[in-house]
């Protein structure tokens, strides 16, 4: 909704100010008409649009389909090293898309035990497979109860709809 509003106002008003830049790669165009992002059951979600999947002693973290859709084509990812600590709600890295760096915030606290090294050569995995091949870090949670403060799939879906509708 936000993209549609700002894009259409610019299309109507624009005379000389800006030029369009399309993705030079073969990746799919990001449709303005798209209204649904994928949200998976069994995952937990933060209001800053990161997901976490808790599986035994390890939790996997990435950004959601909603986030990658709004960010655009990801061209670069900056991730922490193994052994680093992350804390709930704070930045642990960044992605670059469309001339912008955007913070990625950890949904939970813990120690980084694995980093997805494929993202350095293939950052576009975040766009094409945000919940699977585009995972970012695996963390050993220091406080598993933090997961209870996160949203489930239905709640996150509603959150995204409300956020888009209000902008």
């Amino acid at each position, binding site marked *: 909704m936000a993209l549609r509003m700002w894009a259409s106002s610019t299309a109507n008003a624009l005379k000389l100010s800006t030029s369009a*830049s399309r*993705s030079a790669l073969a990746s799919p165009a990001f449709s303005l008409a798209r209204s649904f992002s994928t949200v998976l059951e069994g995952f937990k979600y933060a209001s800053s649009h990161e997901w976490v999947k808790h599986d035994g002693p390890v939790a996997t973290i990435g950004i959601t389909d909603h986030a990658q859709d709004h*960010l655009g084509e990801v061209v670069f990812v900056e991730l922490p090293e193994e052994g680093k600590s992350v804390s709930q709600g704070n930045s642990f890295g960044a992605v670059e*898309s469309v*001339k912008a760096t955007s913070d990625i915030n950890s949904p939970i606290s813990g120690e980084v035990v694995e980093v997805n090294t494929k993202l350095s050569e293939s950052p576009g995995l975040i766009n094409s497979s945000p919940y699977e091949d585009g995972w970012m870090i695996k963390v050993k949670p220091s406080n598993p109860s933090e997961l209870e403060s996160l949203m489930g799939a239905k709640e996150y879906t509603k959150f995204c709809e409300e956020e888009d509708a209000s902008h």
Partner: protein
Amino acid sequence: MAVSQTRNLGLPLINLLRLKGVPILQQLHLEERLLRTSSDNWCIINDGTIDPTIVMGISGKPQELLEIESILRDDIPVIRRFTGGGTVIVDQGTIFVTFICNKDAVPGLQSYPQPIMSWSSLLYKKVFQGIEISGFARMIDYASCTAVVLSDYVLGDRKFGGNAQSITKNRWVHHTSFLWDYEISNMGYLKLPKRAPEYRQARDHLEFICRMKDYISRSSFIDRTIEAVGSEFLLRSAELEDAHCTLGSKFEPSSRLLRKQELGEAIFKSLTASQS
């Protein structure tokens, strides 16, 4: 940190910081600190920077973007900045305009790259309204209903300004370098980038850019920009000392000068890549 009052009379408050000739690295450090440690909105206008300096985006690879041997020979500083985007060479003829805002400062604006760029393009449209140009003004094409990315500021099909951004959980920076004037010889330090917008059509720098000074005076551009900002924010004049007072002392900015050794290593990488 206490949240300062950011709205008055219905418009969000913004601190207007006017600088002249501040070195670009100092400006970038200030921006990053204000992004991360201030809770106010800021508009920074830096009228020129003292020495010609190359500024790459966060992921820029020197071996792909720069004529490194010339740069080392002529001792041109190279900076890697904290925002995304491409490479520019800036000097006294560059005018910098930066917005650092809370995510709810502009009503209805989602803090993602495209909406922020759309918002800024509308603001700058006010700045350039009524300016006579030659050549065809380019329109955004939405006929195919694909999302297009608003990136450069152009007159006709020549670029006069480029922007980049950094977005955190609750704030964002959008900064622009405007080519009010430039030295032709400086453009020789930059290679043709691999990633470029379609409208560039593989033109080299001198065929691709234009000087704002051919269309608007320096003071008029700055005055018009301030007026446009004033139409969306309540302006509060600030001094550099005010900005430093609000900053947390522990934060270390990430924008940095590349060492000559790093540039030398980049030449080696470039040679290795061409041989493989």
